[in-house]
Every structure is written in C-alpha cells, then in structure tokens.
C-alpha cells in the first residue's frame, strides 16, 4: 500500500496548451503588475469550487483540514473523558457497566493519541512549513491529500465502530493476550489494529513528505543552519516517525495475523510471547510521546522569540538538544515495563537513560526563559493584533498559554523523572498517578503550546484579528480546571487507585478526591467551550487581520495577503541570513511584485524551487501536481482493503489492493516530463529554465536527484525500520520466549533460497544497466536502449517472488509454532518487496514506451535502481535469517 511516491507532476493534460505559447511571458516578472501576477498565479493554483474541493491538494487547504478534523476528534475524545469523570465521581458508580467503561477509556486514549495529537501537528506543520521555508507548497501535495483521506477514513472507522458498540476495549496499548482472540473475541480489537494501521499510513506519508520538503524545498540561500528552528523540530519529528511508527505497524499486523489466522506470535503456548507485543508497542509508544511534544516545542521556540522581539537564544544548543532527545527517546521504552520482571540491572540502565532526558528538556526550557529575559524592554508592537492591547495584561493570549505550558509541563516533567526511578515506579505504575503524569505532560507539553500556536497563527490561517477577554477567561478556566482535575490524581494514585477501574468502594478513601477531580473536569470543559465559542465568533465577526500583526521575523508572515493565496508567494525570496531574523513587512511587498525567484507564471505550471540539502543553493525547478481526485480514489480503495480485512473477506482485500496498485501507477503522469526541456532551443521555450534573478535551473524531471528519489530514500528508512523490528521480534522470541527451540525446526529447501538470492542480484544488476543504457542513448532512443534491462529486472523480481512463495509453502503449518510464523512473515516481507520491484519495472517500461524517459529524464529508472540496490542486501539478510534464528535459539537453549 505504501507504494513509493513517484514523480509528482502535473496530470492535467490541458495544461500543455499553455506550453504552446512557449513559456514565459515576462521572464523575470520584474516590473510586472502585481495584480496581474496574482491573477495569473491564482488561475494556476486555485482549487475549484463545489465538488472539486475533494480534489484539493494545496497544503493550506489540506493542512487546515487536518487541523479541523483533529479538533473534531478532540471534541469526541473529550466527551469520552467527561463520561469517564462522571463514572469516577462517586464510589460504586452504576453509570456505565465495566465493558462499556473499558470501551470508553480505550477510545479516549486511542483517539487522543492517534486521531487528535498526531494529525493536529501534522496539519500545522503542513500548513506552516512551506510558508516558513519560502516554498509554494509541500513536496508531494497529492501525498498530503492521500494522507488526509486515510486519516479521515481510518478515524471514522474507529468512531463508527464505537457508536455501533464494537469499540476496542483493551486499553490504548492493547496488551496481549487480553487483545488476542480468546479474550477479545469480538471485532473491536480488529477495528483498533486495522484502523490504527490505516491511520499510520497517513502518518508515514506525512513524515516522508515533511522530511523531503524540509530537505530540499526551501527558499534559495536558506542553508540548513539558516532554517527557522521550527523546521529543525519538524525534521527531527518526521525522522522519528519514520523509525518509530514501523514497530507499531508491524506489531499490529502480527497481532491481526494471530487473531485472524492463528499465527502464534504472542501466544506462549506456541512459542510466542506477550512481552513481544509490549516491546514493539513501547518501542513505538515512547518515542511517540516525544513525537507529540517536539512539534509543540517547535511552536514555542517560534512564538516566544516573536513575543520577546528577539531571536531564539541558543539556536544551536536547542537544535542539539532536540536531536539528543530524539536519539534518547528510542532508548527508554523499557521504563513502561519495569514491573514485567526484567533483571534489575537492565532496568537500571533504562532508568538512567530516562532521567537523562531531563537534560535536553531543561536546555530548551532555559533557552526559552533566556529568550524572554532578552526581551526588548518596551516591545514596539502591541501585544495583540490591534493596538492598543489591554493595559492590564502584561502578556498576549498566546503567552498566557505559554504560561500554562510552563506551569503544567514542568510539573509533568518532574513527575516523569520520579517515574523513571525504578523503586518508585513499582508503586506508581498503572495507578492514577501515571494518569496524572501523562496528562500533565500531554496537556502541558502539547495542548497548551498548541493553543498558543493557534492564537499566534490564527490571523495567518483565517485572516481574522483576534483579541479577547473571552480567550483569557477560557484559558483560566481550562488552567484551573485542569489542575483541579489532574493534580489530585497524583494523590489518589499513591493512595492505591489503579488506572482503568470503573468503580471503587467508599472505604478506599478516594471518593472526595475523585469528586473534586470530576467537578474540576467540568470547569475545564466549560473553559474549552468558551475558547471554542470565542474562536467561532472571531471567525464569523472578527476584524480583518493586518499584515504581520506580531512583527514576527519568519517568512510565513511575508505572504501577500491574510489568509495567504493558494500560490503562497508570488516570488520566492533569496535568503542571505538566518531565516528567523527577517523582516516580513519589508519582504512581503517585494515578493508580491514578483521580485524574487520564480516570480512568474508560465505554462500553467505550479513551480517552486528545489535546493541543495546543506547549502540551500537552488538546484531545480520542482513542478508540483495540479489538483486531482486520485488521492481520494486511492484512499477509498485503501479503505476498501482495510474493510475487507476487517470483515475477513480476503478475496475482496486482494482485489482492492490491486486497485490501489493500479491507481498508484496512474500517479506519475506528468505532461511537462514528456519532453527534454533542457535540450530544446530557447526559442521553443526550452533550455535551462529562467527562474528570475538571473538564475537558470533545470526542471526536476531533468535534475539528477528529483524529490521523488528523496521520497524513496525516506520511505526506505521506514521500511528498514519495519524489517528490523520484525527481525528483532524473531530473535527476541528465540532468545526469551517459552517453548523454544521448537520441537521441529522448520527446514527450508536450499534451492529457492539460492534462486531468490541470484534473482535479486540479477534484478539489481539489470536495474543499474537500465540506467546506464538510458544515459548513453540520445533522445527517444533511451526507451529502446533501457527496455531489455527493465524486462530483466522484472523477471528477476518475479523469480524472487516465486522463490519466496516456494519457501513459505515448504514451511510446516504456521499455526503450530512462532518459529515458522516469524520466518513466513520475513519471507512475505521479501516477497512483497520483490513484487513492488516488479511493479517499478513495469512502471519503468510503461514510461519508456510513453516517451517519459530519456538520457536526461531518468527518474523512473533511478527509482527502480534505488529500490533494487536496497532490496538486495535486505533480501540477503532475510534469506540468512532462518539460520540466524536457529543458531540463536540453540545457543540460548544450550546456555545453562
């Protein structure tokens, strides 16, 4: 399903009509009428009205949709939280019966984590990044749209299941065996596993897209060390998502395979281990917490300097701290498993690492304090979008929420350090103390910063000015209600109240505290309602925002109008200093006049600049795809796959998967890539393309490393993490699960293994040859020159696929022991990748035939070559895996 994103190019054939006019009307755009330029760019970039909105791919629209949808899910999960608090308000409550209560807390946690927090920051990042980086859109707008639809459909599936009374009920971490078939016979657990995997696809595609956008779609001259710090945060977060989400995807697939087909990955009776699920889950789950915190921290690092009127103090220290945090966060997962009986020494190791995270966190906190301390004594701009700000208020509404962040998050961080200490955690673990801690961290570290960000960027996103006593009232209600709700949970937890209990007796001594907590939660809910009503009123009746209301120093405020037009910038700025010290007020009018790079409209192309990764030197003109329904159709087909799996109609699932494949094959069509523009005479509109400011750049279709190749590299990281998790899982079982070594070792025939290795090596060689042959050939001859090698690559992949099938068929029944189940999983991974290799070869052949490949335009061949180059070593590892597993299991059994 996660086909590599291919060429992101225009799919609208009518656009070529414009190309007949041979391009540039006013090559440098200079002196042109800004209104005419605006109109011309709008014609190219605008999303149509009515149904055509479903075809939107523009980052501003899709980003907004992500955010609004996330807020809807927040309202749903918040309502569930209120139900929880009603239930716990009094002892021996009969409001909900335990089965329903389990569904409610499971859905509350699941929706908050997967459908609210992650999509909200994805939407914000999607909305802001191009604007902050000085690009016109994200690198893969159709991926954004596809990700959005996957998120919407997956989330809706979960909510519909809940309304139908079939929600998952095992808690948001779905521990096995409680979530296994015998103890969760209904469809609820399948809904969780499949729905969340569906949503994760969206997260992975967002992560690919965010990394590639940050790496290469920046304004000319914006080297990495000039990026606004928010981009550093999001780059780190996206990288963490690429590595952190695959373990959960893998775990979910394995558990679903166990539930549906009886493969005993987590069943100790068949050589599986419930602890494997816990490891896979927390291998994802712990980084996840930082994945949620860091974007919020990035927003803080952006808006605190704006308030202070000074650049962020310690930019480099902050970047170093967040990278350190990213690495550390992958070494902490065991602190969720202190009570599982692991040796104390290994617990101590994870404990030490866990406490150490406090250091990079403190570095950021004090960088923010230092920034505030350097604040310009009398900040010129008023604290609100309109002068004069209320005199009584020393801080703006966003800064009020920043105060909320400091107060709540610091406390959550401190209890986090406590929980990292093994002997204390053994008491507090799985009690309401942990519920308190996690809400202090999530609401302090995510919700308050996001509310601050919301108020800060509201004028940008909506074009409405905002000021308000109501917003302040809302804040104080939420703040007071929050502390009242959750502070007391520290106490009830230590007084022995386990989490996830639906009822408790009066003799426990917890009832007054719980009542206080429940009453406070309604104060908080009223606060959210005030904030919501105030926001809606602002949207309906607010005054128009003035440009750059906060006197910020980053590029998102240099857009020509609020809210920004669909093309974002009429021209892209040239950056010569740190991009968080700019003066948007001065830049905006220049850009609006087209003074800058690509300040032109030509050929109906949606153009933006691609730069070199480190230096930010302009390198290519990336032509982005027009609006299209393809993402919607593809996501619908993907949804059909998941629904068929859910209802166990496997033939339909295979059919739907084929439809997804066929739809993905339609993505690469791009009219501009049908010709070598660089080789055409300038009179015909060809040559290196003028890009304004005296620059001439190749189109990305003719550039050595176009964005699509970057996307495949990023996807390879996620894919590698998936395979690594699987291999780790197998080795973990061999080492520590009961029932190993298996009574009967699954013997694999030699021949197909050798065949697969040779076939993969051959496919790799053929893919290399295809690229070389195309490179040597002139013009259209490339097609004919490269075709034989592509056919060879296709054959190699098909042979490898067949060999994998042969080996899987030779395994003993997979239900009998985890050993063969794990081997089968690895071989299925390999077979699927060979299949995708075959699809890439078919795609290359198709593109060769349609004239989209030449010596200059080799992306389809390059994708194939990169795929095979990665698949060969990975395939050899998979083929060597059976021997590895056996050796390890026998060594472990031999050891005393």
């Amino acid at each position: 399903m996660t086909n590599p994103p291919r060429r992101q190019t225009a799919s609208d054939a009518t656009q070529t009509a414009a190309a007949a006019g041979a391009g540039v009307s006013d090559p440098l755009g200079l002196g042109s009428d800004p209104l005419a330029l605006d109109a011309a760019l709008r014609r190219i970039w605008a999303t149509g009205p009515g149904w055509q909105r479903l075809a939107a791919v523009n980052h501003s629209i899709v980003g907004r949709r992500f955010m609004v949808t996330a807020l809807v899910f927040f309202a749903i999960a918040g309502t569930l939280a209120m139900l929880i608090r009603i239930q716990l308000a009094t002892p021996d409550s009969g409001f909900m019966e335990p089965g329903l209560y389990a569904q409610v807390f499971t859905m509350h946690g699941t929706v908050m984590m997967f459908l609210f927090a992650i999509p909200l920051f994805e939407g914000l990042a999607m909305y802001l990044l191009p604007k902050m980086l000085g690009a016109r859109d994200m690198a893969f707008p159709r991926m954004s749209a596809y990700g959005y639809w996957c998120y919407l459909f997956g989330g809706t599936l979960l909510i519909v299941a809940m309304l139908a009374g079939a929600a998952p009920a095992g808690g948001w971490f779905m521990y096995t065996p409680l979530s296994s078939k015998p103890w969760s016979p209904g469809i609820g657990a399948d809904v969780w596993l499949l729905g969340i995997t569906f949503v994760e696809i969206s997260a992975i595609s967002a992560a690919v897209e965010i990394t590639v956008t940050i790496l290469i779609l920046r304004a000319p001259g914006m080297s990495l060390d000039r990026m606004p710090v928010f981009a550093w945060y999001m780059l780190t977060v996206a990288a963490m998502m690429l590595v952190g989400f695959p373990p959960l995807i893998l775990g979910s697939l394995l558990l679903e395979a166990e539930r549906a087909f009886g493969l005993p990955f987590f069943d100790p009776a068949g050589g599986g281990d419930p602890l494997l699920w816990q490891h896979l889950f927390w291998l994802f789950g712990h980084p996840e917490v930082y994945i949620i915190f860091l974007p919020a921290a990035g927003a803080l690092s952006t808006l605190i300097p704006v308030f202070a009127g000074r650049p962020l103090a310690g930019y480099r220290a902050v970047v170093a701290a967040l990278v350190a945090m990213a690495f550390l966060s992958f070494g902490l997962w065991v602190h969720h498993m202190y009570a599982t009986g692991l040796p104390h020494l290994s617990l101590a190791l994870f404990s030490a690492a866990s406490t150490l995270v406090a250091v990079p966190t403190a570095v950021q906190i004090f960088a923010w304090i230092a920034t505030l301390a350097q604040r310009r004594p009398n900040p010129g701009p008023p604290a609100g979008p309109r002068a004069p700000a209320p005199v009584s208020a020393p801080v703006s509404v966003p800064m009020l929420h920043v105060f909320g962040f400091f107060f709540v998050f610091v406390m959550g961080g401190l209890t986090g350090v406590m929980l990292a200490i093994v002997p204390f955690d053994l008491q507090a673990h799985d009690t309401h103390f942990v519920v308190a801690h996690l809400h202090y961290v999530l609401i302090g570290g995510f919700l308050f910063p996001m509310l601050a960000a919301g108020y800060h960027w509201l004028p940008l996103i909506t074009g409405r000015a905002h000021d308000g006593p109501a917003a302040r009232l809302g804040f104080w209600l939420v703040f007071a209600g929050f502390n009242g709700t959750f502070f007391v949970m520290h106490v009830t937890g230590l007084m022995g109240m386990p989490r996830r209990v639906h009822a408790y007796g009066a003799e426990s001594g917890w009832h007054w505290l719980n009542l206080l907590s429940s009453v406070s939660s309604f104060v908080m809910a009223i606060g959210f309602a005030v904030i919501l009503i105030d926001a809606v009123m602002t949207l309906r009746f607010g005054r128009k925002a003035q440009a750059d209301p906060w006197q910020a120093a980053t590029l998102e405020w240099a857009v020509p109008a609020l809210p920004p037009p669909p093309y974002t910038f009429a021209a892209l700025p040239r950056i010569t200093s740190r991009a968080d010290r700019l003066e948007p007020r001065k830049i905006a009018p220049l850009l609006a006049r087209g003074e800058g790079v690509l300040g032109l409209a030509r050929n109906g192309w949606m153009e933006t600049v691609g730069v070199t990764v480190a230096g930010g030197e302009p390198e290519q003109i990336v032509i982005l795809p027009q609006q299209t329904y393809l993402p919607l159709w593809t996501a619908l087909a993907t949804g059909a796959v998941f629904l068929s799996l859910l209802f166990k109609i496997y033939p339909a699932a295979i059919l739907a998967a084929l439809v997804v494949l066929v739809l993905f094959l339609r993505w690469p069509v791009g009219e501009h890539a049908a010709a070598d523009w660089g080789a055409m005479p300038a009179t015909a509109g060809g040559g290196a393309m003028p890009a304004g400011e005296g620059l001439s750049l190749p189109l990305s279709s003719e550039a050595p490393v176009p964005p699509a190749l970057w996307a495949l590299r990023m996807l390879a990281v996620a894919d590698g993490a998936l395979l690594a998790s699987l291999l780790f899982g197998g080795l973990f079982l061999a080492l520590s699960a009961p029932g190993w070594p298996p009574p009967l070792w699954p013997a694999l025939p030699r021949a197909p293994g050798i065949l697969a290795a040779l076939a993969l090596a051959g496919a790799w060689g053929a893919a290399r040859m295809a690229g070389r042959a195309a490179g040597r050939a002139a013009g259209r001859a490339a097609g004919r020159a490269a075709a034989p090698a592509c056919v060879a690559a296709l054959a190699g992949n098909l042979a490898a696929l067949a060999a994998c099938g042969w080996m899987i068929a030779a395994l003993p029944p997979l239900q009998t022991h985890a050993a063969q189940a794990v081997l089968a999983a690895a071989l299925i991974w390999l077979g699927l990748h060979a299949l995708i290799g075959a699809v890439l070869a078919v795609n290359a052949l198709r593109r060769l035939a349609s004239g989209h490949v030449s010596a200059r335009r080799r992306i389809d061949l390059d994708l194939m070559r990169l795929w095979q180059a990665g698949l060969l070593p990975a395939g050899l590892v998979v083929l060597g895996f059976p021997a590895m597993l056996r050796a390890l299991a026998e060594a472990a059994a031999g050891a005393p």
Partner: protein
Amino acid sequence: MPLVGCGWTGGPLSALDPAGPQARAMAALWWTMLAAAAALFVLVMALYLWALLRPEAAARVPPRRWILWGGIFLPLPILLPLGAAALVLGEAVLRPAGTEPFRVTAEARQWHWLFSYPANPGAAESVDLLHIPAGRPVEVTLTSADVVHSFWIPRLGGKIDAIPGRETRIVLIADAPGSYGGQCAEYCGTGHSFMAFEVLAHPQEALAEALAPVPSAPVPSTAQEPAR
C-alpha cells in the same frame, strides 16, 4: 516526614501508609523526591516569571549562562545522585537480604488469585486470601492462566506482573501481623476493578494454624475489597 502519610492519605491500599520495610523505603523515596521536585518547580517558575515580568533585570544574565546553568548544571547534580540512589534502593527493595523467605505461589486468572504453599506440605490453597508470616521475607512466584495481571500490595511494596508463559517473582515483608489489601493493577478485562485480595500476616507461631485446611478456609475475603 513519612508521618504525613498516616492522616487522610491513609487507606487500605495506600502506598503512603507503608507497613513493611520496602514500602517504607519507597514512600520515603517519594517524600524526598516530592520535596526536591517542589523546590525545583518553584525555582523554575520563579525564574520564568522573573524573565517574563522583569526582563530588564533578567537580561543581565547572558543567554549562554541561562542555558548552561539551567540546562546542564542544574539537572545533572540532581539526576546523578538520584540515579545512584535509585540503583542502590532498587537492589535493596527487589532483593532484600536476610533469612530464607517464606515461599508462596500465586496463579492469577480472570478475576481471582489462587495462592498455594508448596513449601508447606498440607497447607490448603486459598483464593483471594494470602497467608504470610509477619516479619519475614515472603517470596511470591506468579503465573497467569490467561491474560496479564499485576500483583500489588501497596502497603508492603511494589508490583509485579503475572504474565502467561512466564514466572515472575517478588519478595515482600510485612512488619507486623495484620490485614493488608491487595489489588490487580494491570487492566485484565471487565472484572479488573474487583480483582482484589486480602493478605493476612500472622505471627510466625500462628501461621501453621492459618494454613491448615479447615473446612471453611479458602473463603474469598470481603473485608478488603477496595475497588467495588
């Protein structure tokens, strides 16, 4: 300071009302950390508010110093001793030295605890009721017949999961004879809230009698079901 724990924070399941050396050490650890955390919280908030409200004064501290002192020199000297103390304390709590422990096995299943005393031939099994000697280490070996549960007697010490396919162990000590509440701490299905048990600590002399299979011995207790 632990005295604070005896008032309104008491209760049959309160970890703040310890009744054994391990739980006491853990509670002492908590109160110490609480004091340190409160001080740190006040310090950080004061610095933040100072920088926010009195920037003219706070600006005299250069950014570098803020970050170095606040980010590195403030947390490290606290974290390192804390980590070391945690290691030592953890060793002491998880593996208390001393006399040969009294051994018990506990099988968790939805939603009961079955205790047996293999080291005491003739002792009757008991359901949701655990007999132990007071003043002597008790080693409980846990297994699970179905899903993951977690064995927890807050007033005696920390928890340990009961995991299908595995055996886990915990050693606990009760200071004095008496009754202590126990509860399943890991969500294990709809009966989770009610998966409580009672621990009766007997004087060493009276233990044999308590273990003897009297006709009405293994009755699930109702005295100590906190979560109802």
